[in-house]
Each structure stands twice: as C-alpha cells, then as structure tokens.
C-alpha cells in the first residue's frame, strides 16, 4: 500500500462516514467545542470528539493534577502531578488525531464567563463538566441568549447525568429507523401512473407475474378495491379494509400447470407490506409545527429558508411533501424494479429542483445570497417528512427541583422495590442536595474523614429543605420523603465525590454523541435530561 492511500482521511473516518455520510463528517469537521473542566468525564467526552474529527476544542480549567486524577484520568501520567490539568490533558488528547487542533486556558471557568460573550458565541457547543450549580446556571443563561447549545453533565459515584440546554434545535435528518416507505399509493405521480396503466397482470405469464414488484401489485389491488366499492377514490383506511386488499392480492396469484402451488416470494412480500404501505400520504405533526413557527416567515437561517420553500412547495403540490425517492427492495425482475427505482429517483430530483427554485425566491426576499446548494436541498427534501425542532427551557435549578419533587410525589412502589432500586428522579434530587451541601459547607458529603453516617444526617436535612421549598405551603412532605430512602441518602455520602472512571467513560461516551447530534443537526438528541444509574445500569430520560 502506498502511504497516500494508507493515511487518507477518508480511510480514517470510513467506519463512521457509513453512518452519518460525508455531509455529517463535514459538519463535524467544522465543529468547535469548549469544555469547562478537564477531569476524566471531560477527557472521556473529548476523546470521542477528537477521534470523530471535530475541527477544534478548547479546555478551560484552573485545577492542578493531583494523585487522585492519575487513578481515574487516562489522559494524565504520573509525571504530570502538579501541572495544570488543562495543559497536561490537552497534550495527550491532541495525539489522538493530527487533524484536530486543541487549546487550553488555565483560568477558572468563572473568569471566562465574565469575559466577552463574543468568545463563547464562536463555539458550536459549550460543555460544563462537573461544575458547581452556580457556574452551570451562569453559563446556561449566557449561552441560551446567544443560542449556543449547552451540555451540562456530572459523574458522581455510580450516578451520571446529562442536561442539554438549547433554546431551539433543528433536525434535518433524524435517521429514523424503519421509516414508513413513501410509496404514494394514494397519490401516484404521472410517470408512475403510466407504468401502472401499462401493467396487466392477467396477460402476464406466471413467471412474469411472480417477478412483478409488489408496489405494482398493490396498485392493481387498489384498482379492484375501488371497483368493488364503486368509488374511484376509495382508499383502505382501517385494518379491515387492508385485509380486503390482502384478499384481492391472494386472488391475483396463479400456479403453473406442473407445480400446482400459487405461492411466490413477491406475493408474500406484498401481503406483509400491506399494513405499512397502505397509509395516506400525510404531513406529520412535527413538520406542521415547523411550518407554523414564526421563524419560517422571517428567519435567514439555512434550515428555515428551506422550510419556507417547502411550505410553498406543498401549497402548489396538492398538500404533498417532495417525494423521498427511495424505493424499498422488493422481489422483481431487473427491468421493472430498476425502471420503478429510476422513476422514483427522478421524481424526487424534480421535486427537489422545484424546492430549490422556491428557496432561491425566499433567499432573495430575505436578502441573503444563494445559501443553499443543490446537494443540501436534495438531501433535505429526501428527509422532509421527518424534519423536526426541539426546544428546551432555560436550565434553572430552582424550577427543575420543583419538577423533580413533583415526579417523586407520583412514584408509587412497594417498600421492597423502594429499598432495592432508587428511582432516577430521586437520584436527581439527591444530586441537588449534594450541590447545596457543597455550597453551604464548602465540601462534598463523605469527604472529611468522619463516619459517613454523620454527613448523611446533614444531607438528609438538605433534602428535606429542598422538598419543603418545592411544595406549596401546607403540603405534606411525607409522601415525597417516603420515596427518598435513608439508604439512598447514605449512598450519596458513600460516594464521597468519587468520580469512577467507568461511569465517566459511559457518560462521556453518550455525551460526545449528543454533542455530535447538536453539531450536525442529524439524529434526535436527548430531550433534555438523562440520568444513568450504575447500580442497575438502567437509565431514564425526562424533560425538565
């Protein structure tokens, strides 16, 4: 192998480009991440981002390397003890990928928050790692205002949490698994109609019939169905209607004289596909919400420019979105399948071309140049039925604690379950109590050498206070308190601010992929709080 092919960037990223495509890789390549902190949760997150090929990262931390860091952070070495942790970890992280540039600042994150906000606005994503509640809140507020995604995460003992805070996040390609195929059985386009009309099942040989792609069988069954109903626009909408279609399909089958069986693969496929394929082509709620958004009318952001063009396209296209243009695989002879695949593909291209023309119109009206390329427009149209926006409230620990207490109030489990397994909302509340403990006592529970049970008493008082503050006057705290067991409170003290490498690696792994989602506008991010419990390895997501 010649060196040039060995070290080609496309080879380095081959295994991931197969997932998010060249366009995803390009957006990652222009992503810059700012990370507050350089402990093992921070470096584990950065590791996966540097490997994925982000453009740059910036570490902010004034901590110096201690013994305990060596026992949990892979991007530090014994020799680094006493150095600035941000500098020492930066060195070892940049070794992972020569095309990524990294830099660091050895000041405290508090100092950065006071600096010009413009600096923060240059980052694609800002991440706060194991910071205090004060720092989290401060950054959340600044970043929310300038619409920079903010990820706030913690690793504490066997517990990990991630909170994503962004005013509005747009998703152009959700990569939904097994999306419903876009076959237009209720609204075939012109060229497709021609092919259906040319198709005559009765005139075919058995061999031809058995190599007829099922989409044509579906259209033919629909013709019979409409005749039976005496309604040229009838369309099977209920499960029973669809069962009638299946019966019609069964009746199309023929056997050869010698074999006797009527079974064949394409009819099996046709039958199985009926339930999913016979759906009216419609526009989903998440897409409608986008069209209804005021942003659609005014924004100059690329996403919104195409969305407005899409909205206009639909108005002149009988309420239909552009065709996705990918035909599912189906048993067929080569010529009919490829003809159909080509028809679908060409129709998708021509729909996208029309959307592009409308986009140019919108761009002109809003005084921006040709922002959207052919390619971007085409890809956008292919996923147009699954675009969505996600919005989140500003991170606000007081408000969120109230919501968490509300969730705990609703927990209704027996005593044994309660003792064996702690609910994720309870862990969240305990994380808040630990935060308050740290603020009030200047240290974390279980870190001063006295028996853990003493700090547990102190922590319990703080849990009580948080619950009391969250409930309206006069409400009984007992039902909530019943769900926050002494065992769980003691467990938080047992942790003693331990940052276990495996927990950080787990949470950092998830966080890095969430950051990639935020940077690429592909896939659907956590909305908006994720809690991991290492005891059971179970996790849950809720919106705060």
């Amino acid at each position, binding site marked *: 192998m010649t060196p040039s092919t060995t070290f080609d960037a496309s080879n380095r990223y*081959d295994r991931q480009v*197969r997932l998010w495509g060249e366009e995803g890789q390009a957006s990652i390549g222009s992503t810059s991440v700012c990370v507050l902190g350089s402990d093992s949760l921070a470096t584990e997150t950065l590791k996966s981002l540097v*490997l994925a090929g982000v453009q740059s990262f910036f570490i902010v931390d004034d901590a110096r390397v201690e013994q305990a860091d060596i026992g*949990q952070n892979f991007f530090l*070495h014994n020799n680094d003890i006493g150095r600035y942790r941000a500098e020492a970890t930066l060195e070892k992280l940049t070794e992972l990928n020569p095309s990524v540039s990294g830099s660091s600042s050895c000041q405290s994150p508090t100092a950065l928050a006071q600096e010009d906000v413009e600096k923060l606005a240059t980052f694609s994503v800002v991440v706060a790692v194991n910071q205090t509640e004060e720092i989290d809140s401060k950054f959340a507020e600044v970043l929310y205002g300038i619409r920079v995604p903010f990820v706030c995460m913690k690793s504490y003992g066997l517990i990990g949490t991630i909170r994503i805070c962004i005013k509005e996040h747009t998703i152009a390609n959700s990569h939904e698994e097994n999306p419903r195929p876009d076959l237009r059985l209720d609204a075939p386009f012109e060229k497709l109609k021609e092919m259906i009309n040319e198709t005559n099942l009765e005139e075919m040989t058995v061999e031809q019939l058995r190599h007829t792609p099922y989409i044509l069988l579906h259209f033919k069954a629909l013709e019979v169905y409409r005749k039976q109903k005496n309604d040229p626009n009838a369309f099977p909408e209920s499960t029973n209607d669809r069962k009638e279609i299946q019966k019609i399909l069964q009746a199309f089958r023929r056997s050869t004289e010698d074999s006797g069986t009527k079974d064949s693969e394409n009819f099996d496929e046709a039958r199985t596909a009926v339930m999913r394929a016979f759906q009216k082509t419609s526009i989903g709620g998440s897409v409608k919400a986008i069209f209804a958004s005021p942003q659609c009318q005014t924004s100059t952001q690329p996403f919104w420019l195409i969305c407005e063009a899409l909205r206009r396209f639909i108005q002149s296209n009988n309420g239909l979105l552009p065709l996705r243009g990918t035909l599912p695989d189906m048993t067929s002879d*080569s010529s009919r399948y490829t003809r159909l695949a080509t028809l679908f593909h060409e129709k998708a291209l021509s729909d996208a071309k029309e959307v592009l023309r409308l986009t140019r119109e919108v761009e002109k009206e809003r005084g921006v140049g040709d922002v959207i390329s052919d390619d971007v427009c085409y890809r956008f149209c292919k996923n147009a039925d699954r675009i969505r926006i996600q919005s989140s409230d500003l991170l606000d620990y007081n408000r969120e604690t109230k919501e968490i207490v509300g969730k705990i109030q609703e927990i209704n489990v027996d005593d044994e379950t309660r003792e064996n397994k702690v609910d994720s909302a309870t862990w969240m509340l305990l994380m808040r109590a630990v935060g308050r403990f740290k603020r009030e006592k200047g240290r974390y529970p279980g870190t001063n050498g006295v028996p853990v049970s003493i700090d547990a008493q102190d922590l319990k008082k703080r849990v009580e206070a948080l619950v009391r503050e969250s409930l309206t006057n006069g409400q009984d705290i007992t039902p909530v308190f019943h769900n926050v067991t002494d065992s769980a409170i003691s467990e938080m003290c047992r942790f003693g601010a331990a940052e276990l490498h*495996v927990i950080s690696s787990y949470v950092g*792994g*998830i966080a890095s992929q969430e950051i990639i989602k935020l940077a690429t506008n592909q896939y659907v991010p956590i909305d908006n709080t994720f809690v991991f419990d*290492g005891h059971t390895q179970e996790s849950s997501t809720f919106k705060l």
Partner: protein
Amino acid sequence: MISVDPLATERWRSIRRLTDRDSAYKVPWFIPGPENFETLQNTKILVIGAGGLGCELLKNLALSGFRTIEVIDMDTIDVSNLNRQFLFRESDVGKSKAEVAAAFVEQRVVGCQVTAHNCRIEEKGPDFYRKFAMIICGLDSIPARRWINGMLCDLVMENADGTPDLTTLIPMIDGGTEGFKGNARVIYPKLSACIDCTIDLYPPQVNFPLCTIAHTPRLPEHCIEYIKVVVWPEEKPFDGESLDADNPEHVEWVLQRALLRAEKYNIRGVDRRLTSGVLKRIIPAVASTNAVIAASCALEALKLATNIAKPIDNYLNFTQIHGAYTSVVSMNKDENCHVCNGGRLPIEVNPSYTLESLINRLVERYQLKNPTLETAARKLYCISLLLPQLEEESKANLLLSLKDIVTDGDEILVSDEVLSRAITLRIKFV
C-alpha cells in the same frame, strides 16, 4: 476539631470510596474494608479483542484498579481503526493490536501489567483460560464468541452430586456494538444463559441468492456480489490471486466491473465505499458507542471483582439514534442448549424425513456453516475439497430417508467450524 480525609492524597481514592464503605446496594456478602481494593488489584482478568471495545476495556480496567491484565488478539492495526481505537497511531499501522495496546496502557497507567498475546484464541488451551478470575470480550465475530463460551462451559467441573463446582466457574462478560447500538451481558457458564442458549439473538448472515445476483439483479450490492462470486473466480485476475478485500487494487477491479454491470441493468449506487463494504462485510462503528458498551462491561467486571454493587441480570441493550436508551433484560437459559449440556442432546426426528431436511434443521438451529455428520460407523455427510469422493457420497446421502441411514437410539456426531466442539445427537424416531 478538624477531621481530615484519609484518602485525600490517595491515587485510587474514587474506587476506594466504594470498596472501603458499606452500602445498602452491595452484594449481600460484601464486607467493606481496604482488603477489597487489594483483591481487585490481584484479580487476573483476560480481555479478548484489542479493537474498538478492547482498547476501551483495557483503559477502563486499568483505571478501575485491575493490575494483572492479559489481552489476546490476532489482528494488525489498519488505518480505518483509528477513528475509535485510541491506543493506536498512524505510525502503528501494520503492527499487532494486542502488543501495541498492551504497551500503551502499561506506559500510561504506571504499575499496571498488561500481557499481550498476538494470536488466535483457539491457539490457547484450557490451562491458559483457567488461570483467569473472569474474561471480558470485545469481539466482532460470533464464531469466536461461541468458541470462548464453549471453552468456559467446558472448564466448569461438577461436584459429586452433579451440581457445578463454583470454584471452577469463570464469569464471562461480553460486549458487542454496531453503529449506534450495542449490548453488554454477564454470563455464568452453565448457570445462566450462555451465548449458544441465545444464539437466535444474532441474525443469521444474509446471503443474496445466486439466481438473483446472476439473472435479476436490482440493487448495487447484487452487482458487486456477482463480480465477487462469479466473475472473479472465472477471470482469475492478478495471476489467479484470491480476492483480498484489503488490497485496494482488488477492490478497484471489482468496482470497475460492478459499475459496468450496474450500467447494463440501469442500477444506481455502486461506488467504492459500498464495494469495500460488501466485500469486507464492514460493520459501521463510532468511538462513542464503543466507549459506552466497554464502560458498561468494565463496570460489571468491577462489580464482580469487588461486590460493591449487584451485577446486572443479565443482558443490556443500548441505542443512541433517537435520544439515548438502555434496558436490562433477563435472558433465560435454554434447557436444551448443546453447550450447557456438554454437547450431548436427544433429538426427535421423523424416520421418513431425508438427511437433507435434518441438516437444514441443524444449520438453522445452531447457525452452522458447513456441518459434517457422522455415526460411530461412518461419515454421513462431509463436504471438503480434500475429500472429493466423500463429497459425492454425501450428496447422494442427502436424498435418503433417515431410517435408511440410522436406527433409533443411534448417535450422530455433528461438527462445524462455528462449534467449539462437536454436538452428539441421540436419535429418537417419532
């Protein structure tokens, strides 16, 4: 009075918080104390695979306090590994994964000993595997998982009363990833569901039917597959070399032919990435999923070595396409699993069915590739290039009824490359 944290300047402070202190969520027989961390440090653990999961596992174990680690992998480093196998650099391409990974971890985590074995797992015998307290796997191959699973089941000895001797039981932790999905599981050989108990979890490999790729291709994959299985063996390019998907010239040759075929049939989508993907059966992979699954596995190893918390029961699923989702399910042991049952099982068959139908049934049930069937008296079926005569005989046998080849109560020995050891089936006519 000011009390001081005795672990303030301790390197292993975080782990020791959990190993030194009591908890309501511990395994019942856990006794808090500094001995636990010592035990952990002296626990011998084997990592199988030094790839995407393996690199992460070695790091995780070293930073969880394990100090005696061995790693086995026969592979060498390729540039496409570098997007996730973070112990390797461009200058390491071509070197042994196990050796480079072991050296890196030893250098970074001072005091941790990592012994590398640059070989196939099958090259090591029971005496090698027996010395570990637990084995943790980051493999991408199902046959390799089945092999080590079989080995660990075989290592379990029986007490006089027939129950498994727990001192001979080596727990196996297994991780697997594909794109943004993965799983992690804990197996107690012969006590809980093993790899072969749940073999149906692995979808059988999809092969395109030859008649489709030859006569009615419709997908770009069909065109590439046709060049691979029909055109290459016919035309014997590159002086008759066998097709090597890692050789860019070979890939290029296939690509050009596949493009011509695609053009002929008017099929879109043949390109270099797809061609290498089909030829190598590439599984897409990202750093993040490997990090999550390896952490999940290492956390279980930490629990098993220290009892600080209860292990999962027993299979974790993970996916991160839409949000991030995990769930733990309890897989059941298969009472008829050939591995858990020491390879000897009864099988009920209809005597008038053909040998072919029996073979098809076994291939599906045990996910076999090319089985050989024999009785104590003779070989019934064996397809091997080395034994052409037997192949002819075997094909003739396929059409015979079982009653004409075996009698009720006979034992048939079934062997296959995917089985760590042969299965003995006792025929019961029904």
